[in-house]
């Protein structure tokens, strides 16, 4: 270790105090400010600074907006300054600053002199770090969204190419053939075949349009749309859906209906994909101004922290996003081997009608 004389050490410490980009406050045990370095002065409001310089003790609390614990982003519950027993080597605190409004800081708070009860409170501005993190998250989400969008387009394009265009071409060939037919019986047979092809084509296009957005959702409401969707699921995936609803064909705002429908659809698809079960029950109800939906399966469940994703992996966050957009909340209750329940709750204010 490098040996240092006391004076050298003091010199270093003073320079650090004066020039550090970290704001340093010295406090007593009640949170009164004893001293503050130039960076700290830049944070603090001018008036407060003046009153400090005039010798009036001032509390940190006057511009502290709370710290972040596991419950809240900004809270004064169990304030670290009042209760210095726990480990406060690192935490996040929000301060009201002079120029930049409320700013998050990474803070540490610990005693430097037990006898005189002097504490040091050091702060590092987290704004840039937060911004980077937020951008990172946004970029990641954006990438996933674009990928999911592209996949959906691919699916529709393939559907158009594989079924619609093919059937049309086969119709065209049949039609050309008919031109050269002399025997009325043959023409009859040919037109019958073309009729069949056309019927199939109509069916395909209708399916495609329903998958994109079911008209029944707009025209008849949630229950009808869900019923026909579940029928389709049973036919195509062999999954039984026990659907019960107490909505009695009540209608809601379009964005709410869309959110409920899409979230329900996604939850069912997840059950098909992952639950390894034959049965899912869906309950739709309105209770005390909230529209609620339960999607429950008795399948294999999953580990929420580490789901084994098949696909874009955007489904769960997409469900949350949709719920949030209409002011609702979603919770997923699952455990490996215990099945899965998706619970959705959205506040509804229905107009008097």
């Amino acid at each position, binding site marked *: 270790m490098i040996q240092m004389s006391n004076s050298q050490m003091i010199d270093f410490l003073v320079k650090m105090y004066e020039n550090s980009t970290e704001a340093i406050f010295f406090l007593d045990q009640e949170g009164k400010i004893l001293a503050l370095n130039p960076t700290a002065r830049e944070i603090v409001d001018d008036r407060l600074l003046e009153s400090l310089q005039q010798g009036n003790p001032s509390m940190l609390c006057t511009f502290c907006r709370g710290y972040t614990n596991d419950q809240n982003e900004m809270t004064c519950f169990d304030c670290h300054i009042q209760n210095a027993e726990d480990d406060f080597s690192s935490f996040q605190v929000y301060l009201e600053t002079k120029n930049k409004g409320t700013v998050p800081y990474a803070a540490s708070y610990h005693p430097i002199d037990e006898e005189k009860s002097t504490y040091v409170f050091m702060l590092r501005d987290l704004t840039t770090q937060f911004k980077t993190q937020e951008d990172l998250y946004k970029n990641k989400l954006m990438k996933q969204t674009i990928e999911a969008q592209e996949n959906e387009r691919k699916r529709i394009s393939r559907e158009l190419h*594989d*079924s619609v265009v093919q059937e049309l071409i086969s119709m065209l060939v049949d039609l050309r053939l008919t031109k050269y037919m002399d025997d009325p019986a043959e023409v009859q047979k040919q037109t019958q*075949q073309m009729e*069949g092809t056309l019927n*199939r084509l109509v069916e395909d296009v209708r399916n495609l349009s329903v998958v994109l957005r079911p008209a029944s959702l707009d025209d008849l409401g949630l229950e009808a749309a869900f019923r026909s969707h579940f029928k389709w699921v*049973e*036919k*195509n*995936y*062999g*999954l039984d859906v026990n659907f019960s609803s107490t909505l009695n064909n009540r209608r809601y705002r379009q964005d709410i209906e869309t959110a409920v429908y899409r979230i329900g659809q996604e939850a069912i*698809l997840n059950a*098909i*994909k992952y639950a*390894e079960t*034959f049965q899912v029950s869906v309950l739709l109800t309105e209770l005390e101004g909230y529209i609620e939906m339960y999607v429950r399966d008795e399948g294999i469940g999953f580990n929420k922290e580490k789901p084994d994703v*098949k*696909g874009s992996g955007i489904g769960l966050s997409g469900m949350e996003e949709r719920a949030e957009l209409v002011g609702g909340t979603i919770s997923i209750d699952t455990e490996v081997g215990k099945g899965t329940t998706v619970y959705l709750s959205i506040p509804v204010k229905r107009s008097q009608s």
Partner: protein
Amino acid sequence: MLVTSFDFQTAVEQLKTDLEVDIVLLALAEQEDSFCLKWKCAAGNSNDRYRRVMLKSGKGVVGNVFKTGKPVVIPDVDDHPIRNELYNYPMIQFEKIKSFIALPLWQSYRVKAVLLIGSRTASQLQDIDYDAVIKRIGYDFGPLQVQELMT
């Protein structure tokens, strides 16, 4: 609809015994001109789900075999691109089939049925290669022909 008095169920069960596989399923075309199939017979199945599932021409493994008339051999489902899309193939998922052969069955130059021969152990069907299976089945399956038109 395929009109026949042939007992497909017995034939399917016999085939399962002969080939010593876990499961044999048979899907028949619904109507003369419809492009839908339904599972009609099963041997070695663990549940009756197969009766509920409707198959469409060009959709899923069986739908594609039906549409193209080309057999499909997947020795290990978990080691194949379809592993993440298994939910689109309900029978494979419900019966936990890990390797399978899907064969088109013909009548008057049209695919009328699809035979799915599956094993719940991966790669078990790799050893029984495709030609051997064909040989064991023979050239006829009741009124239908095991005929390769496009290979």
